[in-house]
């Protein structure tokens, strides 16, 4: 749903009062390249997801001016940072202006004494860490998209970090930020009002409200981040098992051990190992009776990590693990973590190799419910495969969410041959997505640990997950965004503008 050409001209004319010509993009290619993210994308319906134009602001004030104009003219605004999210936060559903913050990528301050830095939200974590490395520091927010995701997107999605069990996730690492509200007002949110305060009890804790809203409550423009010493040592042992149950038990024991340098554990299920064995070039061949894998990772000083590693080795051995050796361990961690290898082909049921996109569906699941969710999720994807060879099951991972092992980011990877998507296949996919979310909720989990939950299918169940809390979301949305201009159509928030009796 896009606006008329005359209306675009009117918007552009208004924007040109605050932005230069090279900051306002209206060409077809500019719009096509800001319509999608790596989440499953119906290429045959690309045109339905186009913005009307994109802008490249360079300061908080410019963002505020753009939003103010959009609010006056009642034009939708869709914030776009790295465009690497997996729940379509940056995908325009009702056209409008994409506010692309990539030019706001300056490092404004590195405060060595307080161990913080202040950056434009358009900066990428890897680029930031290249600068911080000169000071022996690191900003340890570590998603799969680490080389390309931007700090602002991490705030807008409340991102999940692979090494979060050691350093915390985005919500813990971002101390405060400047934020443009849907009306164009600029506020600063953090713990209290402080820019570098890590703990405050003053007032409502607004920081969390303005993280993970998927662009529906405004745009973060400048953030102050918590820094750590760049770790001296990394240890990433990999262990093999001949069955899932032992691997699962071992993962739980490793996470519950309470080792201070423990940054995370990953459980590869049997479908995952079978998939890696058949189609992943980075897979280092293992004997056939290897059916499940576990890895753990520790970061810290050499003299912390070594004894901690010995402790985890002991725990793994007690659970029947076979250690894969130093070389494979370091190499496999490098392949999966540093380079993020994903094979970009899958197979039809008969074995034909076909190009496929990698799609990861996630949830937050308590440890005790992992086996049941794992089984039921595979059953959902098996259902898809029965109906179409456009889909392939690439197995599951479970990653620790925190240092105590309570819950896990549970991920099923589904190969999708996007070039072949049509309305029927897309509908199958959306239904499967809803079924996956239903399984998570039925086991007391959350629809997403990491991506967010505002895509077609899964979003239908968000009111079920949040209960009365969803009504609070609607109230907050209506209060802060009276004209529904911020990323309309997401999270069923359009309901906030319906008459009260219709809001169910």
């Amino acid at each position, binding site marked *: 749903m896009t606006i008329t050409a005359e209306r675009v001209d009117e918007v552009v004319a208004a924007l040109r009062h605050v932005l230069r010509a090279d900051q306002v993009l209206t060409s077809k290619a500019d719009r096509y390249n800001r319509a999608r993210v790596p989440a499953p994308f119906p290429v045959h319906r690309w045109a339905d997801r186009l913005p009307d134009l994109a802008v490249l602001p360079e300061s908080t004030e410019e963002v505020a001016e753009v939003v103010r104009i959009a609010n006056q003219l009642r034009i939708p605004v869709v914030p776009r940072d790295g465009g690497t999210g997996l729940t379509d936060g940056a995908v325009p559903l009702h056209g409008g202006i994409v506010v692309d913050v990539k030019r706001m990528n300056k490092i404004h301050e590195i405060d060595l004494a307080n161990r913080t830095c202040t950056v434009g939200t358009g900066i990428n974590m890897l680029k930031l860490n290249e600068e911080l490395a000169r000071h022996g520091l690191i900003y340890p927010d570590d998603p799969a998209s680490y080389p390309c995701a931007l700090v602002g997107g991490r705030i807008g999605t409340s991102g999940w970090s692979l090494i979060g069990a050691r350093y915390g996730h985005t919500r813990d690492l971002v101390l405060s930020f400047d934020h443009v509200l849907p009306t164009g007002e600029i506020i600063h949110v953090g713990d209290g009002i402080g820019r570098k305060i890590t703990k405050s009890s003053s007032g409502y804790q607004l920081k969390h409200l303005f993280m993970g809203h998927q662009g529906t409550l405004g745009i973060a423009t400048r953030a102050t981040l918590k820094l750590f010493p760049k770790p001296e040592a990394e240890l990433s042992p990999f262990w093999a098992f001949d069955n899932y149950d032992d691997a699962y038990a071992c993962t739980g024991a490793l996470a519950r051990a309470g080792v201070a340098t423990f940054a995370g554990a990953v459980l590869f299920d049997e479908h995952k190992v079978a998939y890696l064995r058949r189609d992943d*070039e980075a897979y280092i061949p293992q004997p056939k009776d290897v059916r499940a894998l576990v890895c753990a990772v520790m970061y810290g000083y050499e003299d912390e990590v070594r004894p901690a590693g010995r402790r985890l080795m002991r725990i793994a051995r007690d659970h029947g693990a076979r250690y894969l050796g130093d070389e494979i361990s370091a190499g496999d961690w490098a392949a999966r973590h540093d*380079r993020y290898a994903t094979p970009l082909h899958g197979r039809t049921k*008969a*074995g034909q190799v076909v190009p496929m996109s990698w799609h990861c569906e996630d949830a937050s699941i308590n440890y005790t419910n992992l086996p049941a969710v794992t089984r039921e999720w*595979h059953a959902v994807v*098996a259902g898809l495969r029965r109906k179409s060879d456009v889909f392939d099951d690439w197995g599951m991972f479970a990653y620790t969410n925190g240092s105590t092992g309570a819950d896990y980011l549970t991920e099923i990877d589904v190969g999708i041959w996007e070039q072949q998507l049509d309305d029927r296949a897309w509908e199958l996919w959306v239904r499967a997505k809803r079924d996956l979310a239903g399984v998570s909720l039925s086991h007391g989990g959350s629809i997403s640990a990491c991506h967010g939950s505002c895509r077609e299918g899964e979003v239908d169940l968000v009111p079920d997950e949040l209960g009365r809390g969803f009504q609070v979301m609607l109230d907050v949305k209506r209060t802060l965004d009276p004209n529904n201009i911020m990323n309309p159509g997401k999270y069923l928030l359009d309901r906030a503008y319906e008459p009260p009796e219709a809001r169910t």
Partner: protein
Amino acid sequence: MTQTHVAGSSGEDALDRPFTPGTLTELELGAFRESPVSDPEVRATDPKTREFVHEWRNASYNCFSSGHKFCREVCPVMQVSRNESWTPTAFHANVVAMEQGELEIADVAADYVNCTQCGACELRCPNTLFTGDFYRFRTRTVDVVKAVRALAVESGIHQPQWQSWNARTDERTHEPVLGDVPVSQEHVRDWAEGLDLAIGGESILFVDCEAAFYRTSVPRAVAQVLQLAGYEFGLMGEQWCCGGPAAEMGYVDQARRFAEHNLADWRATGATRILVLDPHDYITFTEDYPKYFGAEFDLEVVLVVELFAELIRTGRLTPSVSIDRTITYHDPCRLNKRKGIWQEPREILRAIPGLVFNDVDHVTQWSYCSGGGGGLPVEKPEMTAAISANRLERAAALDIDTLVSACPWSERPLGEAGDGHDIDVVDLHELLAESLGLTVGGSRGDVGDRRLGGGGPA
């Protein structure tokens, strides 16, 4: 226990357990055999576009489906423009959109100007790193960009500066690197004045347009070092531009004509070996010419940097004049990223006495570029200048007084950016010649001559 039992389902077929596709019998697959799959439909209607899409859609889809965008922050254009429309991801996604009939060549042609063809994105791509072995295939952004530019030209869509540049090149047989001062066949050997160089022979020294007419100190240095080593070589009978830049900008017929002329000239003078001092020519002769001529192109192509490193290694050259400079080395993209040549230049620099060498490793330099390649400075000189400025900022942080490059095309923009930091930009061959006690002569371009007084001793 293995993972075969599915809660809430009867476990009715083989799809309920991990299996390797292709290993199941029809019986095991039950009612769920292969659903028909075929190549996706190409919805583009223009015949030229359809042909292009057929050739490039799978390569493009491999990028589109990854969605990783790891290439983005190493891309020199992206670093200065921060415009997602000008990223390797967009350059591939556009092809997918063309396949779908959503975009046409006219919608995208101008965007493809914004690429220096440095190849950083290809190296950083997870597809190149891991699926290469499986598919015998790597991400080929440079080729995609060249193909789109060629499709644009073939479709009559021209970028104004490129069109004029290539028309003037065609007219003069050399690129108009001196702007309003015309270049011509009569002057292509002017750089060699006083060096007494032969024409023809087995080994031919090929001198690119920028070096022959603008940074003449580079070919003078190379020629004199070769003479000092006693390496026999001659110049071409009638040298034309290599044709590589035309190919990079999409003027493929012209590129091919120039290649045919040069090959015929080499044949006529009995050449069997081409000595190349410019990384851009090295790409043209080792990639484009073999593509044009196949097995018929049987000449040996020798990169002078590699030859000099070898001559130093074997003791035929011994740099002995101390050079009092604190330097860092700029890895030319076409050597480091496109050809994997980064050791030999460092070998040469380490053999020069007196230098303090603050090196930056070649992988870090994947994200460095001068902005001087792929026709970018012809169409968008301001972006080339921004990319060079970015490169010089990194050099300046190393407390150096000299940035050494090994690519004449990089030295003009880098030199201009270096001036503001009070950093000299010197060519590797020039530096080596000086350390061998040679007086190079010639011109180091406007900035170089002002700062260094031409190609005399630095």
